[in-house]
């Protein structure tokens, strides 16, 4: 085992040495979420750990660089025996002065001589080539990566590494400027090497809560220890990275005129974008192939996983779940009007209370929510609350607040910050989600548990959560309205409709409650995971 850079690896108080510690029942590997970020996936992880008090958990957090993660946002449950952190990058280094640069040059010269004198080629380099260039993801590739026989200086300065770079230049990114390619090559593989060098956390089974870097590490440790791996994907990692890559300003497509014939500009897609995209897909494939179970939340995601290389036989759909109150929760609205009194002009006696529950970040598209409320407020009286933390992207939060102010809706739309669920839903009549991307939002399930209807965009599993997944589910009836993304008028129309038609709101809220009772209970989800964990832990 290669020495680990102290800055790139840190355990967090509960256990200092992962290799001599008593193996945990489950090692949960997360990337950029629990316990340092509050939100959907983190809540789910916390819930799963709390829901299995009989099991011990070690949590491995894969972060970008030391110090970026901040303080934990969750109180770790007592069955968490270790929390480890691994970082893909080092903190920024101070620039070298002239003497320092000379010394570095000398070091590099010595290092190159040592690399050239190496008796055998690096297996890790061969594994990286097979993974990224040849698209392989089998046991051989994992075995090569697990050998951990390549150091970071060898990657950056060795001739064999340069050969891999030229192979990538020829086969994956033939049109990329070579200098750019070098920096991207370095940015892609240096984190991988840091992860390969992390000491293996011993556990009876591994559970990666995403593919990506966490999935790679989980697959590697599973291979090294011979213990089984399970992968749960809430969103589809490779697709989410693609969305980020599409907006990345550090990858430039050549500028072409849109009005020109496509032949003159469409082929100018940056090969570097393709390089990164294929890398993330390779990471997913590695985790899929090594995993014994691949858990997803919805049919839509299952299809995407299969397209990305997941063996269909391994995939299982385990929806999220929420705890129901004791006994069925009555819908929020008072007694609905009788059908003969129902009409579009039968206004409720009080303002409809509309809630946006979630982090104030661009991916939730709060701007569209505010626009929709503005349009709806022209027709009906609403009491709108934005409930969720706003610290993650202060600039975006400020922009949303400014939009509310400029629209003159400060008295109707209020930012109330995070609140406990019991205080959120008990004081709402409708929950609205305008996200660009979702997996299977807990917010919808929580709203259902409180008998509230939901308006949500057609992303992730939202449609099947609102309209039903199976025939039996669909027979329950719609528990809300599905709208297109970034369509404030559609969202506003649905809000106005529900504000004016109390009976419809009541019916949808009741359908949601029935749906969550039948298909999305926390105890069912935990029971399914308990069975999966037991199977993995007891596996030979």
């Amino acid at each position: 085992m290669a020495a680990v850079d102290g800055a790139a690896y840190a355990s967090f108080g509960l256990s200092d040495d992962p290799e001599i510690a008593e193996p945990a029942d489950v090692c949960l590997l997360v990337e950029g979420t629990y316990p340092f970020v509050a939100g959907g996936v983190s809540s789910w992880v916390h819930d799963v750990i709390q829901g299995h008090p009989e099991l011990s958990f070690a949590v491995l957090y894969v972060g970008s660089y030391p110090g970026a993660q901040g303080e934990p946002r969750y109180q770790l449950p007592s069955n968490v025996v270790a929390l480890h952190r691994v970082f893909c990058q080092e903190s920024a280094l101070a620039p070298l002065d002239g003497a320092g640069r000379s010394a570095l040059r000398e070091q590099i010269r010595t290092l190159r001589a040592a690399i050239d004198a190496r008796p055998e080629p690096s297996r890790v380099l061969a594994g990286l080539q097979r993974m990224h260039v040849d698209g392989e993801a089998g046991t051989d590739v994992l075995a090569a990566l697990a050998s951990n026989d390549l150091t970071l200086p060898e990657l950056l300065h060795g001739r064999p590494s340069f050969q891999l770079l030229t192979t990538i230049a020829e086969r994956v990114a033939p049109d990329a400027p070579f200098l750019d390619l070098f920096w991207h090559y370095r940015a892609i593989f240096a984190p991988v090497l840091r992860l390969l060098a992390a000491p293996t956390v011993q556990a009876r089974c591994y559970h990666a809560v995403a593919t990506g870097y966490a999935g790679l590490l989980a697959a590697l440790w599973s291979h090294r220890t011979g213990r089984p791996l399970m992968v749960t994907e809430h969103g589809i990692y490779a697709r989410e990275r693609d969305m980020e890559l599409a907006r990345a300003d550090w990858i430039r497509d050549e500028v072409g005129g849109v009005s020109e014939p496509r032949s003159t500009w469409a082929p100018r897609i940056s090969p570097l974008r393709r390089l990164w995209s294929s890398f993330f897909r390779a990471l997913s494939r590695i985790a899929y192939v090594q995993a014994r179970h691949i858990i997803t939340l919805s049919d839509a995601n299952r299809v995407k996983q299969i397209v990305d290389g997941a063996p269909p036989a391994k995939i299982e759909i385990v929806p999220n779940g929420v705890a129901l109150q004791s006994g069925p929760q009555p819908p929020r609205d008072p007694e609905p009007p009788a059908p003969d009194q129902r009409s579009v002009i039968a206004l409720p006696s009080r303002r409809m209370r509309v809630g946006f529950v979630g982090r104030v970040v661009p991916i939730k598209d709060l701007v569209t929510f505010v626009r929709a409320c503005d349009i709806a407020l022209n027709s009906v009286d609403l009491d709108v609350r934005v409930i969720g933390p706003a610290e993650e992207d202060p600039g975006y939060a400020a922009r949303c607040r400014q939009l509310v102010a400029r629209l003159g809706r400060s008295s109707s739309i209020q930012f109330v910050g995070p609140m406990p669920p019991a205080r959120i839903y008990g004081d709402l009549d409708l929950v609205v989600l305008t996200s660009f991307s979702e997996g299977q939002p807990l917010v919808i399930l929580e709203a259902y548990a409180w008998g509230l209807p939901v308006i949500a965009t057609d992303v992730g599993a939202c449609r099947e959560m609102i309209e039903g997944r199976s025939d039996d589910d669909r027979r329950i009836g719609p528990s809300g309205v599905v709208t297109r993304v970034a369509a404030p008028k559609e969202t506003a129309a649905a809000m106005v409709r529900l504000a004016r038609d109390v009976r419809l709101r009541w019916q949808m809220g009741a359908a949601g409650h029935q749906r969550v009772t039948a298909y999305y209970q926390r105890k069912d989800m935990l029971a399914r995971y308990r069975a999966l964990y037991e199977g993995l832990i007891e596996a030979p």
Partner: protein
Amino acid sequence: MADAINRKQSVAPWIAASIADLVGLGLLIGVQEPWTLPVAGVFHAAALLPIAFLRRLRGSEKSLALSFVFALPIFGALLAVLALEHGDGEGTLISDLALAPPLATEAVAGDFGRLAAALPSCEALSAGTVEERRAIIATLVRRGDAEAVALLRWALGASDPDLAVDAALALEEMTASFDARLAACRETLAAARTTGASAAAGEDARPGAGTSDAAAISEVAASLPASEAALAAAELITHAIDVGVADPALVPALAGEAREDYGIAAADPAHADAVAIGRSQLELGAMRPDTALACIDAALPTAGVDARPTLLALREEALLASHALPWEGPSALASYQVRAHSHARRPPPLTARRRLGLPPIPAASGSIRVGPVQVPGAAATRKVRNGGR
């Protein structure tokens, strides 16, 4: 068989050519006299004659053979024979493109490729690969003009949800970028106005002298007159409204802010033309073509030579826009509704018609002729729209 006989019979000219060259070479080697070189040259030229008169060869074949014989004495004839026999596998060269056999499959595939390559952007967005689509969207974001925004808005309604999400993210990025730049412009303008006011009051307006503003903004503002900062802010808003990035609900407020900024910018006579052009574009973007016409007409008499063509082009556009009828689009109707107080729920006065001495547009719902175009009446238009739903 006949072909083989012909070939055997045609060997003689090639041999003759080689012999002529050999004789010339023999003279050069064996007779060292002054006349030897010209005579050897004559023999080399004579070597070309048998080939030149070889009727069996087509034009291009003959050219090739002559080139070989001329360039390579003695061996040229042999090489020419080899080239002609084995050059294209059939012993013939195509001398006329019209006689060339069609490359059927490749040509058809190529044609289809070219047709596909010429797809309009919206087709490319919906039919291209994920990579192509994302590259197109990234390009549209960088272009950021009205056409790009229109395409992205079209993509929002696409049946492919992934495309809709990509387009929505791209539009959000553009809006966020506009908001950020506008905020920076506002800060700069506010700082410039503060600095200007301080200077007018005789206070120290050097960067860092104040206590409230950030040093960076003060520094920029100190070097930027308020009129210039106002012009930058106004032009940014005008552009956002023009291309459709600005939030529709905020357009009236933004347009009001831009008008105020243009007013500040107009204080500097050097900005007169820029203000006139920008203000006209703003009013056109805000669906107030009559106000745009008024701005242009006020500016034209004093406009500079460079600005006049732009103003005249804008005037043309404003004239056309002022004929847009309320029922032609919801945005126009919205514009009239926004101005309901000042126009008392009637379309704004059509300045252009007044100036041209045309009669006012009849209020009846019958069809109207605008230039060569017969515009259906309001009732007819509504009927068609309702029927189409």
